[in-house]
């Protein structure tokens, strides 16, 4: 083509080559002798065991540079540097920390093109994307978080930074993911050890240089490069207080397992198989462009890529036709060419994965279509690919391909669209196309995903939280909710370990134990409470419940896995609770308080046998108050409306988690139960609670309260039994969305470890004693924040 004459060019009107000149970036690489060490404590350190690996340009296969392979010693040095830097960093005023973040944003902008070219060289993404999407978003993220650094003390009173944070990021948006990790961590007052992906370490190292250029104190940001083993070392390092990970669901699982036995805070942003739903009243041409931005951005190597196209049957043929026409105009080629749409796949292993999944899809009988595009003769390229006649059973509909491959299927009704959209283990993002605002918002609300874009796709902004439901992970990045991932309440960090305080309490209560009145009345049988009914335990066994003095107080049903199964099914059936109006939910909680107060005396008297009269009285009194507290919150803990750049609103909705298991604390049978269950129920969750092992008989009093308070059947279920057994069943249950566990360190560790099946969120007392009677940890936002997850619905507007 370059040899054609001007006349030929005039007639053909082809685009011709338009390469971005990489010279300045290559010079920068040469200045570093194409060899990069770890960035620890503000200085470059050669790897302890002297090993390096190669970073290659996927477009050409050429080596770009040698990069240090981090081992245990390197990670240890980095964590130590971060630890040493922590106190001085936190001693700076918020304003001074804000200045550093602001300076980083400026520095990124000053060197934007070098960073963009470097990103494209290392990753293979088109220069248009790194130039127009990645790098501007990086700068925006630092600006935004400079703001949080300034405001953190006012806006998050009572919270403090986690400490040293270990961060592991993927190769698809290397510098952007770095920004998503480092900016909030620093804004909150943490110090950081970050491990960039093995395939794409270079922009992180360039960023390290920027840190020094702005004078960031040494050790606040440390970069250790390497492969998965380096990441492992960081994850298990005892000096790390929090792990933030973005990457595959499999690695996410491994990290959850590896950190289960520690008190490390964890946020995971994992895979996706996001639905792209097109209704018959959509602007189809625009929906096609949405797909281009959705599945052909970054070669489809995007966790939130709209990889499952769901088309209403009536427009499926037209849309497919338009889509194919558009695909035929995509340009696959050199990432540095400014007119390239689809660049190179990051690495041979990723290309093989795409090829093998496509082959599997073909073997399963789905129709594969690829346009006849000129493809580069060498390099790691894959053409845009459309599969039609895909069924939910197909590997193409289920597995994340992480490539430019779209799987299309059809639906008949809005209800079926939502059902298909949710027919996945993931829940990261979704895109909904319709010109009817009612329909679009209804479907957006129905899809289980952390982000829903209406008539748009792949829009990001630092102010809008991003993160998933289900196996797409937990925790959010961006917005206030993203900041919370890097903060913890001061009181929680100071709470004593349960073991020590339980001993103390036991000693105190022992002396004051009340004596049970000899029972002359009718036998009182406490049962399980499932689906609004009192039912006998499946096991047919009961267990004794004794006072601290050893007096038999009664017998509680001994719950087993089938009771839990039944209770979870009942809770799932009651999920309409989430869409019950908040006013209604509040009313029911108030009503429960009212009924609890009617029975206060009797309940307190019975409870006194287990915990002493004083505590029993306090539990009942505060329990009533606690119900009031969360009834009050029910219609006030509301979402926010973001105004990201451009003509959009992004509605950050607080949505219920779904079905939540609760292992109640032992030491406050009534108040502990209500302190955990009330916020969950106020938030619209349905609950399967395991009452205090010390006094499970409280269930008998509670279900009488709930039965008389219009609590719909299945919203609150109670299964008494051994927490260790029941927590295991709940943790392993794939239809439980979250598990709150209050118990010993070992119990908490077990629930975290076993939660990996469906990667349910776990929230535990970390084996600490929580004071439900007084102080900042008794009730409040901290609980509600864990009872909801934020869904951001982006709605563009304008006619």
């Amino acid at each position: 083509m370059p040899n054609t004459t001007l006349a030929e060019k005039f007639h053909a009107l082809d685009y011709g080559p338009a390469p971005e000149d990489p010279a300045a970036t290559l010079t920068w690489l040469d200045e570093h002798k194409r060899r990069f060490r770890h960035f620890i404590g503000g200085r470059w350190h050669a790897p302890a065991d002297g090993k390096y690996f190669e970073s290659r340009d996927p477009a050409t296969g050429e080596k770009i540079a040698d990069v240090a392979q981090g081992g245990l010693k390197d990670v240890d040095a980095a964590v130590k540097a971060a630890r040493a830097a922590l106190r001085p960093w936190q001693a700076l005023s918020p304003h001074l920390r804000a200045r550093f973040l602001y300076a980083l944003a400026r520095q990124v902008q000053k060197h934007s093109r070098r960073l963009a070219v470097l990103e494209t060289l290392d990753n293979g993404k088109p220069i248009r994307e790194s130039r127009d999407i990645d790098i501007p978003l990086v700068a925006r993220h630092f600006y935004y978080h400079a703001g949080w650094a300034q405001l953190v003390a006012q806006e998050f009173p009572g919270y403090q930074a986690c400490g040293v944070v270990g961060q592991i990021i993927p190769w698809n948006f290397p510098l952007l993911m770095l920004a998503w990790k480092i900016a909030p961590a620093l804004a909150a007052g943490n110090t950081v050890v970050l491990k960039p992906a093995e395939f794409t370490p270079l922009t992180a190292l360039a960023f390290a240089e920027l840190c020094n250029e702005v004078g960031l104190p040494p050790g606040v940001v440390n970069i250790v490069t390497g492969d998965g083993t380096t990441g492992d070392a960081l994850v298990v390092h005892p000096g790390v207080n929090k792990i933030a990970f973005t990457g595959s669901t499999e690695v996410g699982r491994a990290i959850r397992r590896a950190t289960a036995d520690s008190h490390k805070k964890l946020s995971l942003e994992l895979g996706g198989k996001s639905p792209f739903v097109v209704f018959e009243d959509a602007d189809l041409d625009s929906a096609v462009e949405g797909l281009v931005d959705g599945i052909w951005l970054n070669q489809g190597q995007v966790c939130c890529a709209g990889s499952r196209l769901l088309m209403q049957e009536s427009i499926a043929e037209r849309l497919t036709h338009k889509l194919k026409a558009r695909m035929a105009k995509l340009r696959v080629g050199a990432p540095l060419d400014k007119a390239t749409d689809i660049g190179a796949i990051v690495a041979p292993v990723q290309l093989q994965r795409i090829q093998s999944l496509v082959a599997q899809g073909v073997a399963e009988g789905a129709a594969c279509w690829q346009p006849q595009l000129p493809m580069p003769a060498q390099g790691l390229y894959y053409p845009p690919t459309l599969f039609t006649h895909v069924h939910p059973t197909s590997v193409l509909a289920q597995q994340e391909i992480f490539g430019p491959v779209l799987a299309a299927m059809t639906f008949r009704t809005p209800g079926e669209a939502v059902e298909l959209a949710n027919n996945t283990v993931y829940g990261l993002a979704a895109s909904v196309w319709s010109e009817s605002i009612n329909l679009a918002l209804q479907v957006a609300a129905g899809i289980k995903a952390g982000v829903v874009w209406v008539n748009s796709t792949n829009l990001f902004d630092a102010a809008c939280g991003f993160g998933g439901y289900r196996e797409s992970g937990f925790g959010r990045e961006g917005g206030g909710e993203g900041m919370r991932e890097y903060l913890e309440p001061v009181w929680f960090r100071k709470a004593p370990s349960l073991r020590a305080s339980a001993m103390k309490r036991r000693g105190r209560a022992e002396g004051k134990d009340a004596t049970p009145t000899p029972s002359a009345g009718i036998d009182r049988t406490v049962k399980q409470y499932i689906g609004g009914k009192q039912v006998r335990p499946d096991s047919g066994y009961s267990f004794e419940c004794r006072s601290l003095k050893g007096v038999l107080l009664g017998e509680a049903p001994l719950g087993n896995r089938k009771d839990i199964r039944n209770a979870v099914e009942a809770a799932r059936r009651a999920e309409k609770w989430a869409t019950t109006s908040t006013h209604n939910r509040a009313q029911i909680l108030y009503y429960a308080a009212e009924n609890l107060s009617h029975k206060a005396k009797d309940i307190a008297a019975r409870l006194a046998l287990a915990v002493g009269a004083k505590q029993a009285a306090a539990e009942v009194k505060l329990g009533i108050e606690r119900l009031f507290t969360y009834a009050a919150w029910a219609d006030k803990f509301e979402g926010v409306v973001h105004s990201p750049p451009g003509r959009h609103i992004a509605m950050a909705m607080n949505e219920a988690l779904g079905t939540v298991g609760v292992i109640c604390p032992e030491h406050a049978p009534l108040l502990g139960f209500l302190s955990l269950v009330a916020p969950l129920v106020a938030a619209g969750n349905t609950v399967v609670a395991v009452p205090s092992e010390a006094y499970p008989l409280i269930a008998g009093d509670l279900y009488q309260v709930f039965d008389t308070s219009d609590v719909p059947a299945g919203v609150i279920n109670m299964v008494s039994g051994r927490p260790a057994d029941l927590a295991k069943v709940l943790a392993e249950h794939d239809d439980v969305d979250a598990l709150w566990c209050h118990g010993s360190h070992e119990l908490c560790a077990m629930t975290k470890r076993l939660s990996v099946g469906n990667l349910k969120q776990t929230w535990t007392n970390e084996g600490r004693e929580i004071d439900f009677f007084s102080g900042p940890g008794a009730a409040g936002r901290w609980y509600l924040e864990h009872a909801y997850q934020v869904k951001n619905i982006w709605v563009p507007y304008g006619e």
Partner: protein
Amino acid sequence: MGRSVQARRDAPERSVGLQVTQATPNAGVPLNLEWVDEVRVNTSAVERRAATLVTRRTVKKDWQIAWLLKAITCMDLTTLSGDDTHERVRRLCAKARSPLTEEVKAHLKIGELPVQVAAVCVYHLFVATARRALEGTDIKVAAVSTGFPAGLNAFEERLAEVRSSVAAGAQEIDVVVTRAHVFGAEWQRLYEEVRAFKAACAGAHCKVILGTGDLATLRNVGRASLVAMMAGADFIKTSTGKESVNATLPVGLTMTRAIREYAERTGTTVGFKPAGGIRTAKQSLDWLTLMKEELGPVWLTPHLFRLGASSMLSDIERQLSFHGSGRYAAAYRQPLV
């Protein structure tokens, strides 16, 4: 690598995209209100596409020269001012005949490439003058007609104006529609109006100005485009140049998509003419990119694409001069448009 593993399961695949390989004149079709009802234009999404359309594509070096030359050949060099005179029109025509200086042409080695503008666009009063000035070339003379720019004269007068312009020698007539028909969704009236204009054109090219700045919403633009095409428009044109907002890329995107829809449904090709506010060489490349991406090669000729502009020519000339000499150009060194 990559595609070797592919089996094309549904081959032979009906080939994709517009199956238009040559221009096919539009005789119009009966008004189909269903097509109008089906128009969906999501403004935000269209704006996003328009914004990235021009960042996804670029042309450099010799290709840019070729594209800029193409832009010249697709230009309706226009003067539509209250102070137009015969002499002003003659000057414009002279520029139309030789839009580039010999020096630039030599530098660029344009050789035998027929680089001249597609048409000169004037008020009715100057049609004859322009025809005489352009004798011996195949540069067309286009007249704005039908009570340009408001288009609110008596219907019979507007038709009469078309006929007189044709009689005076105009080969193309740019007509304006009654925007009120669009606001009132009086599609039948709009259809009949355009049909009548087309008939009055009697073989002259009928370019229908929608007044997109007045229509205000892209949805209106999309509907009006379809109705105008069903009524037989040879071209649809954005605006008069007299509205507060004229040719924008989102409007262009909406109209080109309507043209594509119409072509797919009828097999006929309708041309597109953005006009108003197009001043820079870069804009001409943007519009060509739009045509290439949304419609395809058949639309990249003056038969189906026109740029209504005047000062843009100077900017293109400056760019070409730079390409030829390597030195940035000064406007005063170029013959005035």
